[in-house]
């Protein structure tokens, strides 16, 4: 029930209500299923493929002046959120991996599970996640620290360790805000001094 007063709609529309898949399907969009579920014929039409195969750049030769690990962690998270991730956390990696003591893990809201929806639409969370991890890892390298963004089979376990949520018996991440409807992005491993969450 919406009341209209000139340009004002009461109640105010929810910020992301247009992203709700059930509303969309109810709206009777005959092409929505194609968008979500039909895999691209030519992979060059998919931005996700393009960003995935992009080479990694160099670490900037001079290290930037950075703050304490606590403040740097906040900056990393703030930038990740600004780039469009919904959840972000930092986990400490096992000590045997000396090169990269920390992992930054982002999770974006996913209305459709990208593992089951191969269409360009179904892969939108992956696309958004790649945008975040590409720019964020490039930024850390430009700060003069090593950072590499790569897919990780243990991403969901690391996400749980970083305090984004808990694992359910199937090994899927369950977050307080979005439930299992999240896509855990590439894991950024870095030696930027950070403070781990969780």
């Amino acid at each position, binding site marked *: 029930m919406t009341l209209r007063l000139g340009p004002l709609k009461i109640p105010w529309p929810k910020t992301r209500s247009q992203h709700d898949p059930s509303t969309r399907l109810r709206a009777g969009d*005959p092409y929505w299923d194609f968008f979500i579920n039909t895999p691209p014929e030519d992979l060059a039409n998919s931005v996700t493929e393009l960003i995935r195969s992009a080479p990694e*750049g160099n670490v900037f030769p001079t290290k930037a002046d950075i703050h304490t690990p606590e403040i740097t962690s906040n900056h990393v998270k703030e930038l990740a959120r*600004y780039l469009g991730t919904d959840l972000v956390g930092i986990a400490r990696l096992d000590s045997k991996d000396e090169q990269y003591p920390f992992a930054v893990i982002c999770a974006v809201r996913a209305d459709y599970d990208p593992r089951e929806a191969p269409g360009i639409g179904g892969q939108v969370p992956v696309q958004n996640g790649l945008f975040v991890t590409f720019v964020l890892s490039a930024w850390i390298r430009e700060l003069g620290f090593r950072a590499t963004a790569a897919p990780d089979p243990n991403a969901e376990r690391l996400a749980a360790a970083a305090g984004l949520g808990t694992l359910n018996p199937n090994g899927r991440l369950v977050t307080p805000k979005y439930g299992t409807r999240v896509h855990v992005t590439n894991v950024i491993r870095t030696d930027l001094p950070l403070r781990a969450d969780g």
Partner: protein
Amino acid sequence: MGNATLDKVNQRGLDIPPVPNLGRSARVVGPVANVDMNQSPHPKNQRGELGKALFNWYRNTISKDPLTRVSAPNHFADRRHFLTTVINQASKGKVNSKQVPVTDPAAMTRHIKAVARYMGADVVAIARAHPSFMYAGNRYVQDGTAEDAYQQSTPEELVRKFPYIIVTTTAWDHDKLQAHRHHVGDAAYHVSQMKGVMILKALEGYVKELGYTALRGVANPQAAGLAAGVGELGRNGLIINEKFGARIHMPDPIMTDLPLVPDQPVDIGVEDFCKICRKCAVNCPTNSIPFGDKVVFNGVEKYKINWLTCYKLRPYTHDHWMSCLTCATVCPFTKPNVWWRSLTVWALRTCPIPARPALVHALKAIDDRFWGVVSQKRVRWLGYDSGIKPGEHACTVAGCTAAHEANSGKVAGDIGYYAPLKENTNRFVKRDV
């Protein structure tokens, strides 16, 4: 492909109006020559035609700011860190041979708009293509290539074959924009620009997967944006949108033969506002924005900014910020997208045109009172602090109460917003007049 849908499209494509409708803010009054993008500021500068200082600024400098080095279209340390380069230099995908039939263009229009928004676009509209919107010469994509099989087609042929232009774009963050003339404002601008480039590339790929052609680097985005009703053209030479004001990008749109229903130009009162306001002209550090009336330039009656003086400011501010954005920030239409803003724009657009000047005077007074004749806002974000006054330095740790010595700050970019001041600029910017 000679199916019924395509025939219908071609029939629609045949009736090209002699003069495109761009709304009230820009009127086509004479013959329009197609714009050659090789004569636009960045390509001119890349060839060194704007002088050594600008050439070196563009090609041979590395930014001191790490975030600028990953998000701005120049001043890299490593070009591979810039996502737009990765996207623009990628090879083009093929058009899917299994075309999805479109029986109802209105449904497809709703779908394409929903798709663009789902990918994160803030604004999406469809323009009816017109030969005068087309670029002359080659396809133009900054730092990339946009080759296609229709390079030799004339503008008329292109418009007949691809009658629609999908204009979709992102808006940059209002709160961070308050720290324009600072790396914070640069980040707001450049990050949303990168995002927009990615969304357009994804949408282009999707149109091809639907089985239709998508051309890039063909059409003038501002003309297409005006025809699609993205906004009206302001005194500052920027498209001013109903929801975001001047803080939207105008990236390269997609020209397509996908059957769509075009949108119409809008009237949100920009035309009446710009006649009176002049806030951007007053604030412009280089006096590049006219105080006077519209002029006819290349057959279009519009406000014409002096791009050369605007462009020439850049090397002088390189150490402190990249993108000036003053005209976009001070514009009274550039406000957060909230209810009082919708209310104001609604009041403007429903007001009869003869009564608008009075309303504009009132709104301008309110704007000056609450947002300042010259805006001074301090923004702290990500270790940056835009400072309070030029030269004043402040700690970047939220809640810090420790005493700080002058000039002890470790963070670059403490110059504040309104430096170099307008009078100082006169010393180094030569005016064409």
